[in-house]
């Protein structure tokens, strides 16, 4: 088992192998992610029951929760990739961070925006300086710093290393930011779903929510593969294997 994993990890580091495999995986993942998002949106927007307290406004949860949760997961996965890049100098990890940063920033932005749209009719304000909102905003700023740092280096390898350093320093700092804003001010409703403690929403609302979360995660996987392929083809366009591949098609 361990040998298989190790083998897979080594193969993952090879650009030609990844390019070949991702080309086969992308259509399948893309189909499932988009159909899941469509199904869960229709289910959530038209068929799930109206909330007793918040009315129909709550339905934005089917966009808000997946976006916010995936934005954090992307950042943590990027920090794992950053460690891999700094320790083993695996070029694929650099490609991963560069491709996933804009996706993460986009989903953080969607999360902040949908939260503001949700908050306006429910709590009567677009924005409060509350712990969760503030730490999500800081996450967004970290993403922006990562994206901004990409462009200041001319050498690909230096840019990847710099970005890995920032990502790791950011991931060390994120829990501190989260805790300190927690003590500072908290107004946001507590998380509706938790893995350990069960959930505080009814199953008729929960199932489409879980479907939409799954759909968004698959969508990130799908777009991530697309972005990584684009990045690989721009980095490797002068390599022998890539020329051979593009002349065949």
């Amino acid at each position, binding site marked *: 088992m361990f040998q298989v994993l190790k083998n897979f990890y080594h193969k993952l580091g090879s650009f030609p192998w990844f390019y070949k495999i991702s080309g086969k995986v992308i259509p399948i993942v893309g189909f499932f992610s988009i159909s899941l998002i469509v199904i869960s949106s229709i289910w959530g927007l038209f068929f799930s029951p109206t909330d007793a307290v918040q009315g129909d406004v709550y339905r934005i949860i089917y966009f808000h929760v997946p976006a916010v949760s995936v934005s954090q997961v992307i950042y943590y996965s990027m920090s794992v990739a950053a460690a891999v890049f700094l320790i083993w100098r695996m070029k694929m990890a650099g490609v991963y961070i560069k491709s996933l940063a804009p996706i993460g920033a986009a989903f953080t932005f969607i999360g902040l925006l949908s939260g503001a749209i949700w908050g306006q009719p429910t709590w009567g304000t677009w924005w409060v300086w509350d712990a969760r909102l503030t730490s999500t905003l800081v996450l967004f700023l970290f993403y922006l710093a990562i994206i901004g740092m990409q462009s200041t280096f001319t050498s690909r390898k230096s840019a990847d290393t710099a970005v890995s350093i920032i990502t790791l*320093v950011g991931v060390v700092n994120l829990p501190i930011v989260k805790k300190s804003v927690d003590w500072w001010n908290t107004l946001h409703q507590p998380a509706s779903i938790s893995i350990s403690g069960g959930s505080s929403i009814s199953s008729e609302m929960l199932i489409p929510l879980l479907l939409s979360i799954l759909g968004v995660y698959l969508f990130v996987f799908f777009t991530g593969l697309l972005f990584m392929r684009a990045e690989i083809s721009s980095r490797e366009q002068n390599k022998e294997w890539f020329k051979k591949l593009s002349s065949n098609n």
Partner: protein
Amino acid sequence: MIYPIKILKKEFLIYSRKSSSFISPVVFFLISISLYPIGISNDPDILKNLAPGLIWITVLLSTLISFQNIFSEDYEDGSIELLLASGQNLSLIVLIKIFVNWIFSCLPIIILSVLSVFLLYFPQEGLKPLIISLLIGTPTICLFGALAGALSLGKNSITGPALMLPLSLPVLILGTQAINYSLNGINFSSNILLLTAILIFLLPIILFASVGALKLHFN
């Protein structure tokens, strides 16, 4: 052991002979502190409530003036390259540089922040937590400044401040909270301990990261 002391001496000489390195943060601080009453209000009650945050934010912004001093001149005249090639312990050298930068750019401001008692009607009993929180909080900010400076060497871009300010958020929160706690009669020692913990925890990580960032520029 003699080598670090030599570096320390050299850094002190450079900073003390280049007066702009410690005068410009001080001037920035004095100008902003005197602008707040003009821009916001000259009502003592309003200023008294805003003073802790205003002082902390001004200190934070004034470090933005000085953080590029830590490495930029050494980078331009090539001495960083020599240090990298010398085989000496780089983390120690970076630590010395950050320490001297802190003494020349942050310490004068911390001393001057006493002036806020007159200019911002800051209550005198709040001075002790103000000075303590600044003394413990600003080294952490200088660490972030060193990392941002090392990453953005030779480039005049917004990325340095854009990296540094979100990182400094916990220090800002805990620092201003300590002052507000003590003004309301609550024990503020937990905040000071947390600031110390953050400093001790981040010190080795940031030093390591800054050395890595410095090496990037010389492949």
